[in-house]
């Protein structure tokens, strides 16, 4: 069976198994490493590709992105000077714009997942989406956004007291 047809099941931290084409799964660095290790051990690759830091819902989105990216790759953004102010002007094809039209919390989860799974195109897309959400915002507004999505992002750098207590 070729990679295109072969399916692997990736399991999330909460035990949700998400089937994915092997070709698409190989786009994720973490999955690729796992598969390569299992190939060397000649074990069944369809078993237990478990990701400890990604939830089932997020994993489904990642797999959706990976499978679409195999069929219709996204333009690389990292080295493109961004002069535009809308996501649709920076990203193509259109499918990716719709894919990124999600709430901020989900964006953050996808960035974390993409970073953990080592999926550069998804990371590019989500970083750009987040950039768009905070663009032209004052520090206070940015903090307001972050504090709703992930309070630790807007928390003070480090509490000195906690340091002292930890040291004591």
């Amino acid at each position, binding site marked *: 069976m070729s990679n295109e047809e072969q399916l692997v099941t990736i399991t999330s931290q909460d035990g949700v198994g998400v089937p994915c084409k092997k070709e698409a799964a190989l786009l994720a660095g973490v999955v690729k490493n796992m598969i390569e290790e299992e190939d060397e051990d000649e074990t069944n690759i369809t078993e237990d590709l478990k990701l400890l830091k990604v939830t089932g819902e997020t994993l489904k989105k990642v797999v959706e992105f990976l499978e679409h990216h195999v069929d219709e790759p996204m333009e690389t953004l990292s080295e493109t000077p961004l002069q535009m102010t809308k996501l649709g002007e920076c990203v193509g094809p259109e499918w990716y714009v719709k894919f990124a039209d999600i709430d901020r919390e989900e964006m953050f989860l996808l960035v974390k997942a993409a970073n953990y799974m080592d999926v550069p195109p998804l990371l590019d897309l989500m970083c750009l989406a987040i950039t768009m959400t905070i*663009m032209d915002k004052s520090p206070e507004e940015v*903090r307001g956004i972050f504090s709703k999505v992930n309070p630790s992002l807007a928390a003070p*750098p480090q509490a000195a007291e906690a340091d002292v*207590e930890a040291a004591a």
Partner: protein
Amino acid sequence: MNSNDATDEDLQNSFELVKKLLPHLDACISILDEYKEKMTSIQYFQSSLKDIVSGFSELKRFIDLVNKDFFSDQEGINKEFTSTVLQDFHTFHDEFVGNLSSTLGEFKRNVECGFFYSLQTLHLHKPSRKAIEKVLEICPNVLYDPCDSERPIICFAAKHAGTDPSYVKMLLSIDPDQESMPFLEDLVDSDESDGANADVNRVRALKDITEMGFLENRQIRKYCCGEGLLQFCDCVRLPKVFDFLCSCDPYALLLDFWNDKPFITRYPCSEEGSLWDISKVAVYLEAGFKYWPEIGGLLFLKNAEGTSVLDDAFEIYGEEKVMEVLENILSKRSDFPILHHVFIKSPKYKDLFHKRFRHTYSLLDHSGRTLYQSILASGTAEMKATFSDMVLCVADMQLQEKDPITSLYPFAAVAEDMQLCFTLLRRNPSVLDEESRYVVSQKKRKRLNFPDEDYKDSLSGMALKLIMQYLRPIDVLSCAQTCKEWNVSIDDDVWAGIARRINRTSCQVIEHAGMGNITYKDMAMAFLKKELPLWKVPEMPQPLEADDVIFVIEIRQGWKWYGKRKLLGSYSCLLSNLQGAKNMEVHFRNCSETGAHIVIPASEIEKEVLQEINSFRKDPRSNFVPMHAFQRLEMKTFLMQKSTGRSIVLHDFTRIGKYFREEKSGRTIEGRRFSQSVTYSSGIPRTHEELVKRENFREMKNGKGRFLQSIGLTLAVVPQSTTKTENREPPKTAKQLRKEIRQLSQPLEYSVVNGSLEMEFYKFDNEEELLSFLRRLPWQ
């Protein structure tokens, strides 16, 4: 009017007038000037001399009246005054009428001088309010003329007399005769005739005036004609005065610049109309760095046209000269983050400053920001565009550091620049993956605002303590330094709060131990130093010497079931005396500074100590007191600094019995030389085994033993003759007693026999070592 037209009547009238106005000598001179034209002959003058003398006598009576109230040396004053008067009258007699006014002017100066020197001590005599007001009314100008000592006589006198402060303030700030400068203006100005101590004396005078409430901050900003007192100050000749004024009201430094132009283009420094001398500019700039570090001193203040002081300075004095001045100033403030300010406020000079102040690149600014964070936080897109290379090339570590003020990661701090934001986030997306590894503090950090009118009130006492709770160590340090610069005191309560905040556990331990003499300021300083190793804690003003330290021993009753234990005696001597084995007098119940060898005589022991232990009966055969009677006593030893009272407890009250090595053999108790304790080992080892043992102990204690050996203390119970008093031999010296003990090869069959409790000290092995150790001790 022709002078020949003057009549006798005119002259008589004029002198009558003079007589009335004599107390007002200035007016007198002007009137004489007017009438001297009328005096056609010396005869007229001579005929009127009697009236003049009468007039002066009236003045003299006035002075006498004042003297009665507050001049102690009345006779001397009168004599001097009278001789001056007579001398002047002789001069009057000899001189021509044309010189009359100048002679009278000289006379006036003499009178003023007489007043002046007497008034110097006016306040010491506590004059009545009436007397002061009389003096102020009759002769106000002599009171606020600064003298050699620059003491504000009028203020002292008026304070004592309870004069209305507003009246004194008015006198301080007005120019009564329209000729000289008002007192305050004169006080802050200077000329070449001023002595070497003028600066110090005048600061002292200003402090006196301020403390008495006669100088207000607003006068420093706005004093006369829209100018503040600061502008009248000769900051080059009187740098301390200038600094004092700045410290009273730092805003006064800025007000110059908030007018139309920066200071260097605003005030011509010389008659030729040239600009300020660079040395004056340097003083202002230095004060700016000192009092306004948050805004980068005065360099970046701009005038209405948008030109900064730095721009103007470069244009007027040239880059090289200005940079030299700045290097000189900032060499004393090596922790000043000048690059932060230049990069953000005057980026066009960044290369120029970067060359000279490269070492400040890694400093944190007053907010705790790195240079990189400061640039990101500056907010302007142009700024970030200017430094985009620098921003983009930053290390990954820095991308993970939150801004200490906004708590935002770098990518979020540049949200207005999409490319930059995206690039930074994309470079390090893991910042979004932050788990709650930091304890999220619920406390909001507060920043100190710039000082306002009532900044002293807002920064003192409880308010300051509350503020401290919200600050980090570096902020606490900054706050402490600011308070120091503004002369705002931080009381012990506040320091306690700081110390607890920085290291709560240590403070709790110390408080629990009940160390009442703990200095929280020292603790806080020590903790801050630990937290911020680069901060220099001021050293002791002068090194501690053995002469500055007293060795103290206190003996009290032993443990009891109930009741307070009585302090039986205390003994002390200078540590320096311990170096020699002098025989000293007996000291009991007294702290004295003599004595290296303290012996408590038997009689005193019987009277004071043994009274407390009378349950132990003396041996009927030998009249001995059993050894264990002493063992129940407790002893404390400590070192104390003479000047400050700070102390080090060497050994808190513990039973003397611990110092005895008891070897019971039947009825025998051996009294011998003892170590004070294991911790504070001392004494002379008598055997080789003992020596080896002690050496091992010292090694084990990592050198602590060396010190302990140096100030070692040995307690010994020394036998004395039991013969009756009248037949008693002359008392033996301590040396003899010591010798006797050492000669005893057999253990004593008893302990103390009507004898002395002897405390024996041995000289230091190495004085330098001892002193070095003393200076490093954590004195409490």
